[in-house]
């Protein structure tokens, strides 16, 4: 092998290459496979039919997140369909010797929250999961991406995927974020600039002073929404923060070998001078708190801006803007601030971690949820829940009129009982504002940071979180 500088993506790819396939694709070893109840049952049925075992049962880890209720998680679950799915996952894990982090383990949570928490997610790994937000794990310098159920079958059977390498686009976020501007705003700004399909064929490498300054949880928020920009994986090069986050976690090495492991992790970072297929720079100092106004995450703007007019956008965007305006029933040219909301949702694999809840709680302390607004806080995992309760955040939220729930995906995709009703407008810290996404076929979603959601819950409308004095 030559000594040419390589990107993290290339290093990870080469380390996990089993062989080149005749099709030109790579047979790539998947070091860590995460599964949940929605996209795995059919895959287990397929390997059963093929008569093949799970090849590396100790490299697949399971949890339950999508269908689990957030009010009463006692068994059997009230919803028979949800109970059947959970039962099926438990049976499959038992039968194949796969470790299952269910509620009784104390470690249950959204799959992309618990992977890092447990230390399963480590730099230099390949990680796959039947869920598009698997890109989250890239925050640790892993190559992590979502797959469909047939590919879950492939991984169960062979611990490998047949896949073509991606190009790498480095996205440098320069400057410094203004107060009240969060990781969520950064990724929304990136998607706005590059488009919802701008990342097709690419892995995104996030870098620059703004990314360097971010905590691991903030980096997870950025990587999480890579897929909303069309990139199936996004990553940040591992650094001292990555190493510190992983110290002492359940699946990370103990003190005796940790330093040596950490050295290996840091060596996975992209080499200075390595080649990229594309480089994009974004000025982080100019990013505002962002809000979506339409029906995909690219339909977003700064909170001080106005909803676009069909006449004011590019020709190829016009039909989409018209469709979005009609669905949202918003007035072109109107200010996004002041838009009335009915529901506020804080949670999800994008923004359901402890730091998200802390930021939202600071805002919640300044007032009370507006009469007529339903506001939910759903921790991303049992560990997040415990930590928040130990800090008294649950009390802060309850006192301010928010419901404090049990962990799960909840109203991000509404596969459990947490759903919008009718035409409700929801200020949401989740990742997708697609038509019908939050459970009502006509429901409407405004994506924003958890602090912005808390501010909207109190005001009953979209407001600029920078105008709220949190005493910070």
């Amino acid at each position, binding site marked *: 092998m030559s000594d040419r500088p390589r990107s993290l993506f290339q290093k990870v790819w080469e380390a996990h290459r089993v*062989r080149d*396939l*005749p*099709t*030109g*694709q790579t*047979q790539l*070893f998947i*070091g860590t496979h995460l599964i949940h109840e929605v*996209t795995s049952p*059919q895959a287990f049925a397929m390997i059963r*039919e*093929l008569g*093949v075992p799970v090849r*590396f*049962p*100790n*490299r697949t880890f399971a949890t339950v997140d*999508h*269908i689990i209720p957030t009010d009463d998680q006692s068994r059997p679950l009230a*919803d028979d*369909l949800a109970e059947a*799915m959970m039962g099926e996952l438990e049976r499959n894990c038992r039968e194949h010797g796969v470790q299952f982090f269910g509620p009784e383990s104390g470690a249950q949570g959204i799959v992309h929250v618990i992977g890092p928490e447990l230390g399963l997610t*480590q730099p*230099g790994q390949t990680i796959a999961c039947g*869920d*598009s937000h*698997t890109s989250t794990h890239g925050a640790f310098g892993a190559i992590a*991406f*979502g*797959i*469909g*159920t*047939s*590919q879950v079958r*492939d991984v169960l*059977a*062979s611990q490998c*995927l*047949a896949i*073509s390498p991606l190009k790498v686009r480095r996205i440098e976020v320069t400057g410094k974020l203004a107060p009240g501007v969060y990781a969520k705003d950064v990724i929304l700004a990136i998607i706005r600039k590059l488009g*919802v*399909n701008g990342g*097709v064929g690419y892995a995104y490498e996030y870098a620059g002073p703004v990314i360097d300054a971010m905590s691991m949880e903030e980096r997870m928020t950025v990587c999480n929404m890579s*897929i909303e920009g069309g990139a*199936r994986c996004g990553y940040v090069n591992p650094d001292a923060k990555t190493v510190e986050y992983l110290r002492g976690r359940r699946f990370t090495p103990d003190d005796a070998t940790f330093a040596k492991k950490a050295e290996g992790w840091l060596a996975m970072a992209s080499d200075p001078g390595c080649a990229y297929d594309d480089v994009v720079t974004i000025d982080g100092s100019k990013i505002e708190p962002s809000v979506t106004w339409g029906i995909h995450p690219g339909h977003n703007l700064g909170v001080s801006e106005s909803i676009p007019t069909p006449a004011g956008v590019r020709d*190829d965007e016009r*039909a*989409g803007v018209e*469709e979005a305006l009609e669905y949202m029933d918003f007035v072109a040219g109107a200010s996004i601030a002041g838009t009335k909301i009915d529901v506020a949702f804080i949670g999800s694999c994008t923004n359901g971690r402890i730091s998200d809840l802390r930021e939202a709680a600071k805002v919640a302390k300044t007032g009370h949820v507006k009469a007529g607004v339903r506001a939910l806080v759903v921790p991303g995992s049992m560990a997040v829940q415990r930590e928040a309760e130990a800090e008294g955040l649950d009390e802060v939220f309850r006192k301010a009129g928010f419901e404090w729930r049990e962990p799960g995906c909840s109203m991000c*995709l*509404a*596969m459990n009982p947490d759903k919008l009703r009718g035409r409700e407008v929801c200020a949401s810290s989740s990742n*997708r504002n697609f*038509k*019908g*996404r939050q*459970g009502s*076929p*006509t429901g409407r979603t405004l994506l924003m940071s958890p602090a912005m959601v808390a501010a909207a819950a109190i005001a009953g409308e979209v407001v600029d979180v920078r105008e709220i004095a949190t005493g910070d």
Partner: protein
Amino acid sequence: MATNEDVLVRIESVEGTACVVRGDDIDTDRIIPARFMKVVTFDDMGRHAFADARKEAKGKHPLDDPRYSGASILVVGKNFGCGSSREHAPQALMRFGFQAFVGASFAEIFAGNCTALGLPCVTLAERDLAKLMDSVELDPAQTVTVDLRAKQVRSRAGEMAAILPDGVRQQLVEGTWDATRVLLEAGDAIERTAASLPYVEMPGR
């Protein structure tokens, strides 16, 4: 192993009538709303394809248009299948009756899921796609052919160059799109790769 050379299904072309669903960025929540995924099989997905969009269109959705009844090729716009990785989306469309997709572009995970099911996703140049859409809408009874060998889409609108990644085309044409068998052929090379990695401690079989 139940699979062997004898059951390789080669997808060299798909021929039939087509259906046009216009619009860009049609996401997989749109194709199959999440509430229909509360099941442990794909069996029932077909009847829920585009459930909410069809309800919203009150019978006027292309999937409910009798002129497109029995279509096996779905013609779509840009970034089709974006969003969630749910294989339920291509499963729903396949079980509804579609065997191939022709569009301006496809989201990556969706296209990968389609390949795993033996469903080609081919793209056309913008002008060609516009012509094909118009032609199919004008004459839905015409036969459209997605020819993977010739890398063409043929219809009354003419012969158009179809674009798809070479590796995917090869998988479909050679019948190796069902990847499990191919991956297992690597044998012990899988364990050797595992052993070379610093974090896969116990590669037990």
